[in-house]
Every structure is written in structure tokens, then in C-alpha cells.
């Protein structure tokens, strides 16, 4: 018996898709491609990463030293994902 419901019809999905695509087209008309607007903190990171952290790679210095808490959170998210996979595939020995 076909029970698809009267609310979830394909035309509502098409309207939603067109609306979201038009909203994502707004940056193409508002921003310029080669000139970012706010560069003060990034200029500080580029100028002072060699004296304050001693690394040649500015992206590594930003990921591990200037913003190290985000990397700690990301390592924890990866750990919890593997924990979830291991819990689903366990064998219950009775």
C-alpha cells in the first residue's frame, strides 16, 4: 500500500531548492574575488608567526598554535565517531 503522505510532494522540494540556490548566488554579486575585505588578523599572523612560534608554515602555526583549541575539539570528534562505529559492530556474547 502506497503511503507517501499528502505533505511531502516533489513540488515543495523543487521550490526549496530554487530558493536556496538563489540565496547562495548573492555572494557572486556582492563580493569581489581577489580582494578580501578584512585582513587585519591574518596580516598579524603572517608577520609574526616566525618570531612567536618558530614555524615556516603559517597554516600549521595557525592550526596548532594560534587556534589549538579547535584542533583539540576536532581530534575528539574523530575519536567519538570511531567509538560510535565500534559500538554498532560489537558482538553481544550471551
Amino acid at each position: 500500500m502506497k503511503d507517501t503522505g499528502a505533505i511531502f510532494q516533489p513540488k515543495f522540494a523543487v521550490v526549496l531548492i530554487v530558493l536556496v540556490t538563489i540565496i547562495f548566488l548573492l555572494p557572486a554579486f556582492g563580493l569581489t574575488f581577489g580582494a578580501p575585505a578584512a585582513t587585519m588578523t591574518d596580516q598579524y599572523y603572517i608577520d609574526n608567526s616566525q618570531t612567536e612560534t618558530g614555524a615556516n608554515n603559517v597554516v600549521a602555526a595557525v592550526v596548532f598554535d594560534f587556534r589549538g583549541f579547535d584542533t583539540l575539539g576536532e581530534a575528539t570528534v574523530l575519536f567519538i565517531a570511531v567509538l560510535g562505529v565500534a559500538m554498532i559492530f560489537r558482538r553481544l556474547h550471551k
Partner: protein
Amino acid sequence: MIANLPFIAVALLVGIALATILLKKNMIKMVMGLAMLEGAVNLFLVTLGYRENGIAPIFTNAPEGADMVLPTVQALTLTNIVIGVATTALMLVLVMVIYKKYGTVNSDKMRRLKE
């Protein structure tokens, strides 16, 4: 208008990914659509930090006298890629368990909770 081509590509990718999630019935295709949506968001983040005629933000044997692109958005994209991998792995494992219980991956054919 033609210089803003990466932003138009982001909007197209988001539209195609949303169409795949909402209009397809196979569950593995829905997971593929979500992965494509995460790829579109990563492209948007990297495009925001580009400077005209810039080089990579690395000081080892760099060419002389050139501007560097912004490094903060690249750090955000690194984190986002790893989180995307973790989410996709968990969703695929759930699809495997559903296939074992129901015998199908078509989302129209699962209607009741099975024991």
C-alpha cells in the same frame, strides 16, 4: 561577472547536492548528496581567502616580493574536511545496519520498526 566564477560554481554545487538529497529514494545516493554539500561549503571557504597574484603562505624557499593569501580560512577548511569524513563514516555504517534488518535500501519500503 565572469571573474566571480568560483562563487557561481558554489551555488550550482549546492543546488545539485540539495536536489540529490531531497528527490532520490536510494539511501546511499542521499549520503553521496550530503558529501557533495560539504565539498561545496569547503570550496566557498577557500575562495573567500584569495588575494590577487598571491602565493601559498609558506616561508621555505618562497619567491621574492609577493603577497601571501590568507591562512585562517585554510585552517577552518582542514577541520571541516575531517569532520565531514567522520560524519560520512557514521552514516554509512547506519545504512549497513538498516540493510541487514530490512533487506532493502529503498526509503519508500521501510515503514515499520522491525525487531
